[in-house]
């Protein structure tokens, strides 16, 4: 699916990356539609995180281009939520100061930053005390703070690297519901890496299935389920059909 730059938030062309001579990407193309939530799913080690790390400018690529409406990543506001919230939050700052940090980096005036913090807290219906230190919060609360920090700067693109994998099932369900609501409300272009197929389908407008290395697209699956998607969507016939299709694609991708 090729999108013109106006409709696309990201255009990736001819991406190349190898680790110690082993190619992961050799000429990879991808366009992500503005406002879409794209989930990336694939076998272990196929380079899902590598892809978003290159897109986020955290990892150098060997070749090709990744453009945000024609601009390099350094000129774009992005948000990134790491898998391990314990290692991603700044434990020496209170939760609220963690969220304020990127706003301070951008030189936002104090009043505007406070307004932004309050808006985020309202949007995520935060009921715990943001003036606590991260280690005083539960895992789910810490990851919620990470997500708020990533969204604080109103990013053009949000990257989520297995954001729920360190959380228990109950927390995952509620955080997932909250996140999809906010992302759809804000219409943030989002790229989600997940190792949970069900989660990928529930959260995504579009699911990209990747093959083993060297990585190519095994299937590009639209997920036209209605929003919001609660737990009832899990038994929706369309959901079940999409999941069945993805599973068979996945099995082929792993077997190949």
């Amino acid at each position, binding site marked *: 699916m090729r999108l013109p730059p106006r409709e696309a938030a990201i255009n990736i062309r001819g991406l190349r990356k190898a680790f110690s001579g082993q190619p992961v990407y050799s000429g990879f193309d991808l366009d992500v539609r503005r406002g879409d939530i794209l989930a990336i799913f694939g076998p272990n080690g196929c380079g899902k995180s590598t892809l978003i790390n290159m897109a986020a400018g955290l990892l150098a690529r060997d070749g090709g281009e990744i453009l945000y409406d024609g601009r390099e990543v350094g000129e774009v506001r992005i948000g990134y939520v*790491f898998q391990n919230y314990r290692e991603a939050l700044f434990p020496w700052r209170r939760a609220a100061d963690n969220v304020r*940090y*990127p706003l301070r980096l951008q030189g936002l005036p104090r009043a505007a930053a406070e307004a932004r913090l309050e808006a985020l807290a309202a949007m995520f219906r935060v009921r715990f005390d943001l003036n606590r*230190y991260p280690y005083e919060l539960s895992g789910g609360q810490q990851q919620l703070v990470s997500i708020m920090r990533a969204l604080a700067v109103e990013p053009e693109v949000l990257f989520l690297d297995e954001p729920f994998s360190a959380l228990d099932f109950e927390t995952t369900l509620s955080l997932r519901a909250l996140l999809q609501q906010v992302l759809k409300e804000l219409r943030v272009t989002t790229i989600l890496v997940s190792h949970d197929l069900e989660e990928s389908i529930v959260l995504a407008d579009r699911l990209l299935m990747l093959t083993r290395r060297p990585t190519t697209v095994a299937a590009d699956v639209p997920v036209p389920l209605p929003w919001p998607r609660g737990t009832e969507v899990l038994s929706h016939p369309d959901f079940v059909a999409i999941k069945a299709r993805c599973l068979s694609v996945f099995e082929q991708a792993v077997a190949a």
Partner: protein
Amino acid sequence: MRAAVAPALGALGFVLFWQVAVWLRVADPVLLPAPAEAFRDTWQAFAGGTLAHDTWRTVQRTALSFAIATAIGVPLGVALGAQERLYRGVEFVVDFFRSTPASALFPLFLILFGPGEGTKVAVAAFGAALVILFNAAYGVINARRTRVLAARVMGASSARILRDVLVWEAMPQILVGMRAGVSLALVIVVVAEMFIGSTDGLGHRVINAQMLFESGLMYGAIFVAGALGYGLNLLFLMAEKRFVHWAGR
């Protein structure tokens, strides 16, 4: 309150052990006076002002050398740690001198700083600075990579990352280094006071009392030095708990 019971009992046991040794005449009473006698001599020396002055001088020298060591060791360690390749280059030299007994450097420093105050403070500062530098550098080198990436993805420059992330990441290790450094500084200062033309300080008092067979005072001065070391260690432990309450959590 209860936490203090066990150490108090331990100390009491030690004094009792000492008293028993005196009763059994394990050593000549001139060399091993009774605890009460040692305590009385020490108290008198304190009341007379000499031992208090010695303690104060030792504290002053230790504090000065520690302050110099911190002022040099922390910034240099952080800077070297941020440039890991550079640190690997100087690591051997740092490790070598860190492992060299500081007392072996006295003659060299005597040439450089003369027989006065300078040498005592300089050797202690030198030894402590290396320990602090080493710990600060390792604190920075072992900073969680994810936090650095998180800052970078939020648009922090290298200078901001150093100031907002690396220094904080290294803080627990820096404080460990400072605790080790202040202990080492005290050790070196006391040794220096014994052997490098001193007229005061706990080291001077200990060796002077020994030569004059003032055994009670000698033990007293030793215990004051011990209390000083213990107190400094405790002070830094408390500071660690307070200032890096978030460490490891």
